[in-house]
């Protein structure tokens, strides 16, 4: 039985539908991100899972028991979940240890048990030396760890994270990303993580659900999301891509007359996503299988970790972005050969 199931989950404010029949299933121990631009409904979805918002349609169940349905909602305190908030919501009137102990005390554990588990937890997040400090005396990263400890120590059925890293600076954000994943690997708590930052979602998640305008566009493992986007939105939102208008005729996919390989799609116009990493640039014709054609370098920008080329196939008005390693320098105007990896060509809706 899946741990968490959202089925047809919908939230509408008057005529405005912010979450539109979302279906999502999390197995026990799974880490799934809700990724999308602001206003896509991801936070509303998370807050419905937590029980802070009542759905107007569909249901939420944990281990098969319905917790939320229109007009029948179990309040947050009886869901056995925990949550990490954007503002951390560390209580400034309690010490670090008191913050972490809060949920345990509510579970009527013995005092020894509470002390032991708080101590263990603080050790895991490397805050044992700060147990008796007040939150105001901690740095942003440390406060974040308190929030993590406080949420995880109760071993919740589902852990919810609402853009937990958005208030941290860039370096710390990267560090905390791995910290969150490390804690997940250690405790295997079923987790829903809301973020608008794809790098965060990629680094932490088993699967990512990309949301747009209240709907889930695609749910997949991070690398599949990148290499095989299924919709135009996913292709454009996750990473950069070349979105091309292509034609399928007699089982062959063509862009502006260039054959990209066979396609199972019915004949007609389609939209194709071609990642910059799916192309390689060669000075001489490479002996590769797959589509190779002549082109010229139209523009180039050096980005440090890679080159960003704009390449124009010969006899075509297409402009394709292609990425290349730093040592693969080609002058602007140079005649080159462009090879495409057919496995990374995705037809999107």
């Amino acid at each position, binding site marked *: 039985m899946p741990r968490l199931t959202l089925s047809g989950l919908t939230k509408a404010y008057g005529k405005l539908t912010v979450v539109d029949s979302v279906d999502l299933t999390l197995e026990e121990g799974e880490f799934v991100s809700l990724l999308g631009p602001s206003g896509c409904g991801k936070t509303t979805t998370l807050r419905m899972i937590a029980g802070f918002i009542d759905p107007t349609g569909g249901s939420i169940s944990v281990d098969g*028991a319905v917790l939320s349905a229109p007009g029948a909602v179990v309040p947050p305190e009886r869901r*056995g979940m925990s949550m990490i908030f954007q503002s951390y919501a560390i209580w400034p009137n309690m010490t670090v240890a008191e913050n972490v102990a809060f949920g345990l005390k509510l579970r009527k554990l013995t005092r020894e048990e509470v002390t032991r588990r708080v101590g263990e937890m603080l050790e895991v997040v490397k805050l044992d030396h700060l147990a008796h400090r007040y939150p105001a005396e901690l740095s942003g990263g440390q406060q974040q760890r308190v929030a993590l400890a406080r949420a995880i120590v109760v071993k919740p059925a589902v852990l919810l994270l609402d853009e937990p890293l958005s208030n941290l600076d860039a370096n710390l954000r990267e560090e905390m990303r791995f910290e969150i994943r490390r804690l997940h690997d250690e405790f295997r708590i079923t987790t829903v993580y809301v973020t608008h930052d794809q790098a965060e979602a990629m680094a932490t998640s088993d699967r990512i659900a990309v949301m747009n305008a209240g709907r889930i566009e695609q749910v997949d493992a991070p690398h599949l999301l990148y290499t095989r986007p299924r919709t135009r939105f996913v292709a454009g939102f996750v990473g950069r891509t070349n979105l091309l208008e292509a034609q399928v005729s007699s089982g062959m996919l063509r862009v502006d007359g260039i054959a990209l390989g066979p396609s199972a799609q019915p004949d007609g116009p389609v939209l194709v996503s071609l990642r910059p990493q799916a192309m390689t640039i060669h000075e001489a014709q490479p002996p590769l299988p797959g589509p190779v054609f002549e082109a010229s370098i139209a523009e180039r920008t050096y980005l440090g970790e890679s080159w960003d080329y704009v390449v124009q196939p010969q006899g075509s008005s297409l402009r394709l972005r292609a990425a290349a390693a730093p040592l693969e320098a080609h002058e602007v105007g140079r005649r080159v050969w462009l090879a495409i990896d057919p496995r990374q060509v995705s037809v999107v809706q």
Partner: protein
Amino acid sequence: MSDAALPAAQVVRPSRLRRLEPVTFLWIALIAALLVLVAAPILKMVVISFEEQDTGVFTIQNYLTAYGRARYLEALRNSLMLGALSAAISVVIAVPMAWAVSRTDMPGKGFTWATVLAAFIMPPYLGAIGWILLAGPNSGWFNVTWRALTGTTDSLVNVYTFTGMAFVIALHSFPLVFIFVKSALDLISSEMEDAANVLGGGTWVTMRRVTLPLVWPSILGGFILIFLETIALFGTPAIIGIPARINVVTTQLWQFFEDPVRVEVAAAYAIPLLLVTVGLISVQKLMLARKGFVSQTGKGGERRQIRLGPWRWALFGWCLLVALLAVGSPLLVLLQASFAKAWGRGFSFDNLTFRNYEFLLFEHDMAPQAVWNTVWFSGASATIAVVLALLVAYIVVRRLMRFADVLGFLAMAPFVIPGIVMAIGFYAAYAGPPLSLYGSALLIILAFASRFLPIAYASSQAAIRAVHPEMEEAARILGSGRLHAIRKVTAPLLKTSLLGGWLVVFIVASRELSAAIFLVGPRTRTMSVLLYDLTEQGNFEVVSAFGGILLVITLAIVGIGMKLVGRDFMLRRE
């Protein structure tokens, strides 16, 4: 499977009954409380202004009576002029002080702050009594000294004049302008002024053309508030104006309450006060809502002090003069009189006595009772106001109910109702049958609670806004119910600001006169009312001693507040 002790899965089927959370009942209770405290008195007052006494038949006779005599119309005109003059003098006093403290390197800023605070804390009627001792035409200290120095028989100043009265009122109202203008100035970055300097404007040109226009809305806002406070003020016009035969709206209203009480006429006569207040407050709101003209430009940019050179001593001299006139000299003469056998005999040992205090504390039949009344009325009304305001603010800020804003509107409504009008409303609604609360402690406590509800509401609202809702949500998701979360998380975080709000209400309630004077009975007189009654008897030594007791109590409370809540808890602009 998780080992969460809270059984998430086995929860019984939740029902629709959750919709009827306790908060719904609370909402109904709050609406009822606010109707009793705010809506009913005002509506009742408007209604009875159209009713014939005793019979309750519809009539406009009350309005014909109220506006049918030249004397009554003159009182109206006097009130408007007094308000404008006092507000203008306050602006003249306060704007240079605010500019000096906020923007310049003037010395003695702490002293200036203390002056403003002291002038704010001192009840205005006490200042008025002090000024009678200072500037009474015959035996006032200033005039006696003037005659001794010059040998003339004329008097230098006379407090029993229209300007004298406006001046005394301004000396205790200017802190409002000061707070408004200073907080606006605090938000202007020096870069605004630098930009003018770079283009060739000197300090004075820059101040005139850039800085002052930026704080103009705040100055006007302060002006309007003082104007409104003055036209609703009872104490000073009664103490100075009645002997000087200057009649204003509030003293005229008081006369309508003399036997035979004509509440209906008073209600009709109070309507302009209400309309002017509602109108001006709306104007002020509109004005401050106009974007681009508002001085709040954010805290960005560096702020530097303007170096004034020798001029800084001139500004300090101004602040010193204000301190002497508003606080120093009135306090000194009150203190002298309170320990004197006869205050006119001056400072000497054989004139020294503790008799006045002894008389008040041990022999006067009413004084100890009045002290007790003041403390417990103020305490009870502050508690009611803060509890009510807190509940309303919580529901409004957290948007727990659909029509929560109605509650907020009602809680803020007394802000546009002058205290004296509120008192007439309470009298009209509850003094007579069926409740017959006239003269009872309950009536006064309710009136105070209603009158100062907006102060409590503003501070509760600010306090609750400062507590992120996620603080409570974090507690709830970990397993605590709404009430448990409020008790464990929200309440401890609100404690300090609520205490601050409670103390401010307590302090303003403890010196309240304009509403109390209409509602007290023989045994429920407060210190302020008794002080006014003593003034009418003309024994200034006893009056001063009683003022001293009032000040000591107020200072003690302010001191406790500063210790527990923070130095400027009284003067925060909210």
